């Protein structure tokens, strides 16, 4: 066969593979949305779940998921930024930093159920945090940190070294150059990493079952004092998240409308992940334009 023909064959094959992957994803997405959305009502989204009767909602679980997400991102974003900046901009190249990079790599491929059991032992038992949002947030940090750090480091590394030289040549220190030149240039990449991390955290169940727990105490949505035991913001209360709820009603749920609740909850979960993605992309572009003065991202 001539190179031209080979090229055509290769293009066709690659094209078909892409179409196949997109079709699978689209099918999954549509299937979840179509089977779930009919069950979604305002009452379903905001209402309390029920243990035995039909007609329960997912309000508490949704709130828990969002709260846990925010808390774990509050912990992991500064840590990953610090670690990523250090590894990319400051760390000397030697066996120690290579070892750290390798360990981060290994950590990022740790199965989430292992992270969950680790979190259970360390945070819930040893640190006596019990089944709590804080335990969950810390477990999610362990789960998420390697990936975020790696992403921050990669995004910073992708900024051309001539940008750093430009800063140095103007009499700027390394720190000034990193913070005002390199990080802004890398921000779209860093942000994408954070979004993906947030999506992973939001959909995570296995790491949370033994850390944040599988139930929530009766919450008093009129008291937002984080130290009050029934306060929604209390970080030391247990919290069943949306993903854990889906797992639970499917594995041991005894409510008669388990499949409907699970379908509806899955649809909401997917919608939120999509929402994060679009919103963060929008704000990321806006931020990039603001930082660079560019009108279009080119």
């Amino acid at each position: 066969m001539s190179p031209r023909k080979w090229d055509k064959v290769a293009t066709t094959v690659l094209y078909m593979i892409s179409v196949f992957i997109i079709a699978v994803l689209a099918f999954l997405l549509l299937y979840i949305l179509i089977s779930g959305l009919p069950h979604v009502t305002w009452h379903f989204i905001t209402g309390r779940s029920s243990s035995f009767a039909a007609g329960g909602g997912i309000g508490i679980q949704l709130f828990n998921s969002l709260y846990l997400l925010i808390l774990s991102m509050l912990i992991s974003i500064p840590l990953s930024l610090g670690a990523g900046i250090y590894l990319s901009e400051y760390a000397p190249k030697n066996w120690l930093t290579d070892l750290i990079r390798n360990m981060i790599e290994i950590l990022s491929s740790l199965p989430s159920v292992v992270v969950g059991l680790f979190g259970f032992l360390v945070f819930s038992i040893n640190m006596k945090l019990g089944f709590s949002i804080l335990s969950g947030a810390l477990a999610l940090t362990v789960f998420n940190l390697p990936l975020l750090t790696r992403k921050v480091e990669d995004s910073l590394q992708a900024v051309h070294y001539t940008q750093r030289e430009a800063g140095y040549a103007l009499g700027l220190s390394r720190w000034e150059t990193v913070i005002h030149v390199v990080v802004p240039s890398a921000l779209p990449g860093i942000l994408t990493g954070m979004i993906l991390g947030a999506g992973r955290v939001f959909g995570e169940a296995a790491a949370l079952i033994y850390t944040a727990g599988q139930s929530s105490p009766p919450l008093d949505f009129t008291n937002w004092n984080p130290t009050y035991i029934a306060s929604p913001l209390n970080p030391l209360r247990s919290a069943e998240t949306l993903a854990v709820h889906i797992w639970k009603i499917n594995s041991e749920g005894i409510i008669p409308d388990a499949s409907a609740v699970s379908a509806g909850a899955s649809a909401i979960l997917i919608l939120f992940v999509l929402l994060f993605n679009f919103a963060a992309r929008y704000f990321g572009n806006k931020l990039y334009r603001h930082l660079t003065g560019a009108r279009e991202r080119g």
Partner: protein
Amino acid sequence: MEKYDRSDRYLKQLDDGQHEIALATKDLHVSYGEKEAIHGVSLDFERFKITALIGASGSGKSTYLRSLNRMNDNISGTKVTGQIMYRGLDVNSNQIDVYEMRKHIGMVFQQPNPFAKSIYDNITFAPKRHGEHHKKVLDEMVETTLKQAGLWDQVKDDLKQSALALSGGQQQRLCIARAIAMKPDILLLDEPASVLDPISTATLEDTLLQLKENYTIIIVTHNMQQAARVSDYTAFFHLGDALEYDETRKIFTRPKIKATEDYVSGHFG
């Protein structure tokens, strides 16, 4: 390449009291790891003149230039010995505040490297970091430096535009404007025209000739016509040594060293 006798040198001495010296190196060695790239170069650079550094690829001219404001500090394993005298101070000593020094010895690189910021911010960013916050002063600085760099007329209506949207030649002139906004004494240029088209190159050369009024310029170039057109002095580098240093017209008309003659007449390069 022909082997040349590297002890055969002619280096014009400028520290005779008749020339004002802006910068001088004395026996400057640069090595990367085990390999020495510059084998002891001593040159004097006259104030408010353009000095061109020419030589084949690998002759060490860029390495030499980059050591003048210690840009090589950032490449691990680089060692620079010898003296770089600037205003009676040895730039190559540990006591020197490199960041402060680089405000006085600015640099423009081979690849245009504007920040991913607006044109305005590209110029004002570093001065702001160094404490200049008066809007009026900054506005004036932007206008003056862009005019000096020959870019003002093309961008004056759109200073908030991203610098990344400019053409390569415009970006390079912006980088020059950015460098002179720091009001350096000395401007080091590392093959600034190598990525530019002939028209942008011509504009850049005009710009350099104007800048000469207020700045001491040292430029590395591959382009011998360019060296001949813009510079007052030329140093010829060969395999890590400066073999000949003289007034530019002498280098290009009556070189004293065989290697220089062969290089400027295009026998190797």
